[in-house]
């Protein structure tokens, strides 16, 4: 059908006109973003002037008038007494100390190696697509601390029989838990395994209180009671093994049961064997090394402790709940510096005569407890956000409390609070700078000690050192926060409305 179409009706799609001149190009962008209103213009001009002034000063101080090389303070002093910028030569000369403290020069490769291992184990764990996550986590969580400890201290740590027995008792518990996890395990033997391990722990507690005869076994000094505990732990492992095996499981089940005691044995051996490394006492450690050791230990200890405390705070048992609440709120209520003073001055008083923890270990204990309390609150936030249906669903499936937590609740809760966890890590990393006040030479501490070196006293030494330290802290913290944002985006599984 023919239709008369008026000539003013378009026959086809006309190309769209370009936007008005005032809305495109640089001027429009500038106007929209910087000079939208008179007030905006004023703000822009004022801030622009300020930013330019600050940037110029920073560049002038940090680059143009800075001194980059030199052997001592003479390099950073102008003959006429004028002002120079940053004294980077100071940082350059002291860089080794800032990183390693007074760690012996010939042994610094050990620190480097430990750091390299850390990076190699952390990067694949941090990249979501990398395979073997579980193995990687186990290596980082169990093997790396031992390797790093041996590397950094030189090994040959005098592990006493009591400690050996204690570690094996813990292993026995894990074995029993693994055996119980396999279907068709014999309940009687399982009960026996648990009972034996519990008795072993009890014996150890008594051994702590009572002094009994001492003798050597495999190079470890055992007391009668701690030896008894050790044997009980081994018996418990055996019981778990039989409980699992008679259940008709394949040898894989037995392997799982045997794994914890074997790993423990290897760890104990690694700690006590002489690798021929020169011992380096912790008071020689310093700089970034101490900062990282304190921060990483705090991070590693705070997560499991925090989870336990968070669960305790949401427990139905009033005593457990009350204890968790008091513990968490107490440590959150006091400043870290008083906690560190407490760990420095009071832990030695708490310990029986003759036992002493070194300064670094005491600081670590203080930091770990402190950050665990903060972590507990973050994780509690995640637990509270899990709908009740998830708990009920897990219970309806017949899962036990720990199974429910491990398989259903925790994975969801932790995912929800990853940003909070990383923020706690960042806070912890920054807080490590306080250990200087109780006499440890962390990064900030070494930098500040460098100020009093008569060789390097100049008007700009202190500012240069502090800027350098600030930059290092910033790098670590900023990196962590960016990673947390990345994980946050990745883990978002459509809960967002």
């Amino acid at each position: 059908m023919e239709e008369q179409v008026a000539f003013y009706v378009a026959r086809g799609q006309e190309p769209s006109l370009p936007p008005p001149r005032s809305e495109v190009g640089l001027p429009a962008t500038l106007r929209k973003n910087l000079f939208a209103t008179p007030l905006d213009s004023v703000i822009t001009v004022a801030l622009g002037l300020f930013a330019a002034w600050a940037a110029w000063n920073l560049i002038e101080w940090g680059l143009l008038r800075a001194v980059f090389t030199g052997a001592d303070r003479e390099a950073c002093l102008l003959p006429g007494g004028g002002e120079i910028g940053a004294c980077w030569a100071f940082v350059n000369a002291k860089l080794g100390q800032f990183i390693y403290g007074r760690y012996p020069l010939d042994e610094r490769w050990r620190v480097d190696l430990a750091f390299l291992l850390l990076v190699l184990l952390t990067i694949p764990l941090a990249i979501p697509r990398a395979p073997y996550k579980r193995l990687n986590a186990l290596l980082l969580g169990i093997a790396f601390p031992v390797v790093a400890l041996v590397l950094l201290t030189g090994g040959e740590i005098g592990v006493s029989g009591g400690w050996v027995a204690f570690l094996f008792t813990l292993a026995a518990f894990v074995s029993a838990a693994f055996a119980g996890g396999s279907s068709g395990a014999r309940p009687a033997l399982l009960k026996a395994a648990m009972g034996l391990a519990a008795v072993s722990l009890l014996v150890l507690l008594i051994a702590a209180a009572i002094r009994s005869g001492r003798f050597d076994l495999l190079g470890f000094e055992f007391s009668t009671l701690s030896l008894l505990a050790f044997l009980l732990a081994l018996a418990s492992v055996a019981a778990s093994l039989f409980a699992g095996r008679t259940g008709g499981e394949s040898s894989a089940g037995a392997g799982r049961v045997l794994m914890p005691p074997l790993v423990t044995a290897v760890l104990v051996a690694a700690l006590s064997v002489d690798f021929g490394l020169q011992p380096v006492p912790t008071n020689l450690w310093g700089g970034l090394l101490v900062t990282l050791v304190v921060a990483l230990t705090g991070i590693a200890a705070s997560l499991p402790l925090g989870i336990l405390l968070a669960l305790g705070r949401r427990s139905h048992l009033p005593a457990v709940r009350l204890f968790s609440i008091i513990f968490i709120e107490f440590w959150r209520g006091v400043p870290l510096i008083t906690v560190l003073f407490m760990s420095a001055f009071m832990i030695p008083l708490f310990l029986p005569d003759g036992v002493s923890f070194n300064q670094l270990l005491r600081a670590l204990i203080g930091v770990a407890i402190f950050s665990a309390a903060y972590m507990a609150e973050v994780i509690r936030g995640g637990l509270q956000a899990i709908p009740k249906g998830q708990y009920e669903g897990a219970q309806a499936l017949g899962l036990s409390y720990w199974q429910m937590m491990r398989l259903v609740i925790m994975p969801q809760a932790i995912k929800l609070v990853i940003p909070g966890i990383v923020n706690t890590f960042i806070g912890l990393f920054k807080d490590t700078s306080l250990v200087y006040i109780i006499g440890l030479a962390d990064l900030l501490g070494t930098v500040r000690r460098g100020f009093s070196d008569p060789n390097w006293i100049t008007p700009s030494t202190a500012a240069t050192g502090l800027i350098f330290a600030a930059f290092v802290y910033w790098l670590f913290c900023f990196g962590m926060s960016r990673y947390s944002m990345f994980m946050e985006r990745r883990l978002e599984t459509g809960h967002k409305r």
Partner: protein
Amino acid sequence: MKNSILALLGSVAVASAVVPATAATLDDVKNRGTLRCGVNTGLPGFASQNDQGEWQGLDIDYCKAVAAAIFDGDASKVQYSPLSAVQRFPALQNNEVDLLARNTTWTMDRDTALGLNFVGVNYYDGQGFMVRRDLNVTSALQLSGATVCVQSGTTTELNLTDYFRANNMDFNPVVIESQDSVNTAYEQGRCDVLTTDASGLYASRLEMSNPDEHIVLPEIISKEPLGPVVRQGDEQWFDLVKWVHFGLINAEELGVTQENVEDMAANSENPDIRRLLGADDNFGEDIGLTNQWMVHVIKAVGNYGEIFDRNVGPDTPLKIQRGQNALWTKGGLQYAPPVR
């Protein structure tokens, strides 16, 4: 599940359960193979680190002397713990160090109430004041109204208050926890006056960017007998450190030096020297060492005079005269009971 909770709780208790037997300090030191010595975090002349990170100074030499006495002349078997003023007593009380050689003033309160024993006086000091030259101050009595920088947790802080109060003068204290921060604050002009022990003042002056701009005022406002400290309750250890100190002074008095000590030990006919160096009697074994203990000590660090001259004496940057620290025979205060 119950067991897991138990395990957690138990672990805390067991963690510190395995108690090594307590022993006397000397046995501990011998078993450990090192002497743990608490020293200043950095005070030129008394305890400071050179570019290689090695410790040196008068207090350091005392640590070395004790180590040499115990380990048959091996003065390197010392583990130094740098301690701040606030940390030093708890560290000693809590058995983290065996010996505190950290320019510590001997006072009655510290000797009695803090559970410490002062071994002797290795440096007679007194508190003084440093000011900028361009303030034109010549006496501490002109300091009324001044702002004074002082390190917290020291007797200095108390003496300062007492001195100004006794002379009816006002002052504004600026109290900071570490000496290097105190120095920085003074150098930046936060204070008019820096006060600490006179020896420390000379050291601090060296650390100023232009030492000639600062002068030390003549007044000494307190008695600051500095000396090594040990824990109360271990008489054997107390005696040992005390007699290493007295031995160093006696050696100077008797003319035994690092150079001639072996010769003296072998050939000297002087009965005092023979007793000191273990040729006669068993004084060394009486305090749990070998009879050659003093030979080892002198060979390692020299006598008191040599230690003084090497670290703080007129030929060092500190340029401190012997003064009160000269032997009693030369008009000073250093006097040691005889080895007999």
